[in-house]
C-alpha cells in the first residue's frame, strides 16, 4: 500500500487571547494519498482554513500548534525550525488562497513573482526560470503567456489571476497543495474552469490536494474523499459519494440537505437551527449537541471520536471502507438505542 503524502494526527491548534485560550482545532486526524483530493467542508470558523495553515506552517501568533503531529511522506514537519519549514513551503507543499485579487503583489509583474518563486526553489538560471514561468502560464491556460508574463496583476481578470496563483503554487512541482476556497471569490462560470484545472493538474502530476470550501457542489465534483468539520473537529470523513449520498452525522445530514438540487429546486432549503458555538464556548461532549435533533444524554457528557460506524441507522445502505463518523448514534450500545 502506498504511503500517504500528508498525515495529520490528533492536531490541536490554539489561539491565546486575553479572554483565554481558544481551541480552533481540537484533535483532527486524516491522511491524504498521492493524487487524491480531500475536500474539507464546514461553516466559517469550523477550522478548515486553520488546518490548512497549520499544515503549511503559517499559524501566526497568537495562534500555536498545541499538540499532535503533521507528517509529510512520513517525516514530521510540525516541529521544524522556521528556515527548514520555509524550504518545504512552495517546494513540497503549496497553497492557493481564496481571493486572487489580493493574493498577488500589485507592484510586481506576474513574471517577476513567478521567476522569484522558481529561483528560490530550483537551481535554474534566470532565463531558464523565465522559460519555465511561461510554460507554467501556458499549462494553467493563460493565452499568449510570452506576452502576459510581463503584465501586472491588475491587468488580469479574476479567473486569470487565479490561474496565475495556481501557476505560482506549481512553480516547484509540490507534492501537496492546500487550496483554501480557491473558487469562492470567482464568478460561477469561472469557478467550474478553475475546479477543472485543479482536478486536471492533480491527475497529471499526481499531486495531492486538500480542498477547503464551504461549497458542497465543488466538493461533489472535485473531491475523492470529504471531511466534514464542525467547531474544530472532524464530524465525518469518507469517500465523497458515500458521504454526500449517505451522510451519517446529524450535522452532515443537515449540510447535505442544504445542497440545492435540480429536483428539489422548488422546495425550501433545509436549515440547521441555531449556529455554531463560539470557540470560547464549545459545549461539553459532542460540540453539535445543542443543535442536534437526535441528542441524548451521552452526547452532553462524552465526546465522540471519528470511528467506523457499528450500526447503520434505519437500515442505511452498506458503507464504503474508510467512512468514519464521530457520533454516539453509531457507537452506542443497542440497548440504549431502544430507550
Amino acid at each position, binding site marked *: 500500500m502506498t504511503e500517504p503524502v500528508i498525515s495529520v494526527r490528533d492536531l490541536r491548534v490554539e489561539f491565546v487571547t486575553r479572554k483565554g485560550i481558544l481551541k480552533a482545532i481540537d484533535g483532527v486526524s486524516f491522511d491524504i494519498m498521492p493524487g487524491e483530493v480531500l475536500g474539507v467542508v464546514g461553516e466559517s470558523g469550523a477550522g478548515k482554513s486553520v488546518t490548512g495553515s497549520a499544515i503549511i506552517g503559517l499559524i501566526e501568533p497568537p495562534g500555536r500548534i498545541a499538540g499532535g503531529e503533521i507528517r509529510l511522506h512520513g517525516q514530521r514537519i510540525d516541529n521544524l525550525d522556521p528556515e527548514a519549514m520555509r524550504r518545504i513551503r512552495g517546494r513540497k507543499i503549496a497553497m492557493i488562497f481564496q481571493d486572487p485579487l*489580493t493574493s498577488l503583489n*500589485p507592484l510586481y509583474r506576474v513574471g517577476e513573482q513567478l521567476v522569484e518563486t522558481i529561483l528560490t526553489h530550483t537551481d535554474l538560471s534566470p532565463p531558464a526560470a523565465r522559460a519555465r514561468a511561461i510554460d507554467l502560464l501556458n499549462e494553467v491556460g493563460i493565452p499568449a503567456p510570452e506576452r502576459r508574463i510581463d503584465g501586472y496583476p491588475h491587468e488580469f481578470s479574476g479567473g486569470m489571476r487565479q490561474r496565475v496563483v495556481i501557476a505560482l503554487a506549481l512553480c516547484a512541482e509540490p507534492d501537496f497543495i492546500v487550496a483554501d476556497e480557491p473558487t469562492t471569490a470567482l464568478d460561477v462560470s469561472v469557478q467550474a474552469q478553475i475546479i477543472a484545472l485543479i482536478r486536471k493538474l492533480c491527475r497529471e502530476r499526481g499531486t495531492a490536494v486538500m480542498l477547503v470550501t464551504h461549497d458542497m457542489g465543488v466538493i461533489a465534483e472535485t473531491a475523492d474523499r470529504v471531511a466534514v468539520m464542525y467547531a474544530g473537529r472532524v464530524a465525518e470523513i469518507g469517500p465523497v459519494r458515500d458521504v454526500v449520498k449517505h451522510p451519517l452525522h446529524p450535522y452532515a445530514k443537515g449540510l447535505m440537505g442544504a445542497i440545492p438540487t435540480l429536483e428539489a429546486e422548488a422546495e425550501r432549503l433545509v436549515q440547521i437551527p441555531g449556529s455554531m458555538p463560539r470557540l470560547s464556548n464549545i459545549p461539553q461532549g459532542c460540540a453539535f449537541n445543542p443543535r442536534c435533533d437526535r441528542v441524548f444524554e451521552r452526547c452532553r457528557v462524552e465526546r465522540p471520536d471519528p470511528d467506523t460506524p457499528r450500526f447503520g441507522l434505519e437500515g442505511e445502505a452498506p458503507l464504503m471502507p474508510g467512512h468514519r463518523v464521530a457520533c454516539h448514534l453509531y457507537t452506542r450500545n443497542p440497548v440504549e438505542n431502544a430507550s
Partner: protein
Amino acid sequence: MLAFVIRRIMQSAAVMLAVALIAFLMFRFVGDPVNQMVGVDTPQEEVARLRESLGLNDPTIVQFGRFIGNALHFDFGVSYQFRQPVTRLLAERAPATLELAFTAAAFALVVGLIMGVYCALRRDSWLAQLFQAISLIGVSLPTFLIGILLIYLFAVVLGWLPSNGRGQVVKIGDWWTTGFLTTSGLRALVLPAITLGLFQMTLIMRLVRAEMLEVMRTDYIKFAKARGLRTRSIHFGHALKNTLIPVITIAGLQLGSIIAFAIITETVFNWPGMGLLFLKAVQNVDIPIMAAYLMLIGLLFVLINLLVDLTYGLVDPRLRIAMRS
C-alpha cells in the same frame, strides 16, 4: 496621463494665485508701503509723486496684476530694513537653508525608515518599544527645545560640535555657497540637521511602522510566505516596496514643512538662511520679505505636491492605468 498632468498643473496654478492674493493683500494693505520708504520730513508732494509712480493710485485689480507680473520675474520689491532687493536677499540665503533642509530630510528619511521597519518586524523587542517611547517624546518636544538640549550636550558640555553658524563655506558658481566641502562646514551642519529632522524622523518612523504592519497582514504577503520565499525577500522586497508608496507621499510633503520649520532651527543655531531672514522680517514688519517668502514657500509646497502626485503614478502601476483613462 497628459490630461491628469494638465489638470494637476491647473490646480497648482489656482493655489498659487490664492497665495499670491494673500501676499499682495499683505503687501498692499498692512502698513502703507510709501510710509516705509519716505522719511518723516519728506514733503507731501514728494509722497504723492512716489505714490503715483509706484502705481498705488491704480485700481486694486490692476495693482494685483502688476504684483503677479513682477512676481513672475522674481521681483518682490525692496526690503524696508535692508534697502536691498528682496530677491537678492533671499537668493543669498537660499543655499544655507536648502542644504540644511535636504540634510535634515535625508537624515529623517533614512533613520526614520530603518527605525520604522525595525519596529514593524521586531514589534515586541525592547529596542522597538524604546523607539516607540522616543517617538512619543520626539513629537511632544518643541524643536527649539531639542536644539537647545543638543547645543548644551554636544557644544557646551562635551565641546564636540559647533553651536552656531555654517562654518567655512565654499563658493560654487555665481551665488551658491556650500558647507558640504569643508570639515568645519560639515561639523556645523550636524546639530542643526538633527534638530530639524528629528520631528519628521519620528513621524516617518511611526508611519512606516503602521504601514508595514498593515502590509504584513495582506494576502499577498501571506501568499509569498506560503510560496516559501526567503524572509529577507518578503520583508525588504515585497513588504517594503508596498510600504513605501504612502511613505513617499508623506515624506515628500514633509520636505516643504522642513523648509518652513527651518525658521526655528536657524534661529536656535544662528544659521544664516532664509528662515532667519523671514523671522527678522516678521519682527520688523518688513512686508516685502514676508510676502516674497510666503510666495516662495507656497511655490515650494505646490511643486512638491505636484511632484509627489506624479511620482506616485510612476511607482504604482495601478495608478498609471487610472491616470491614462
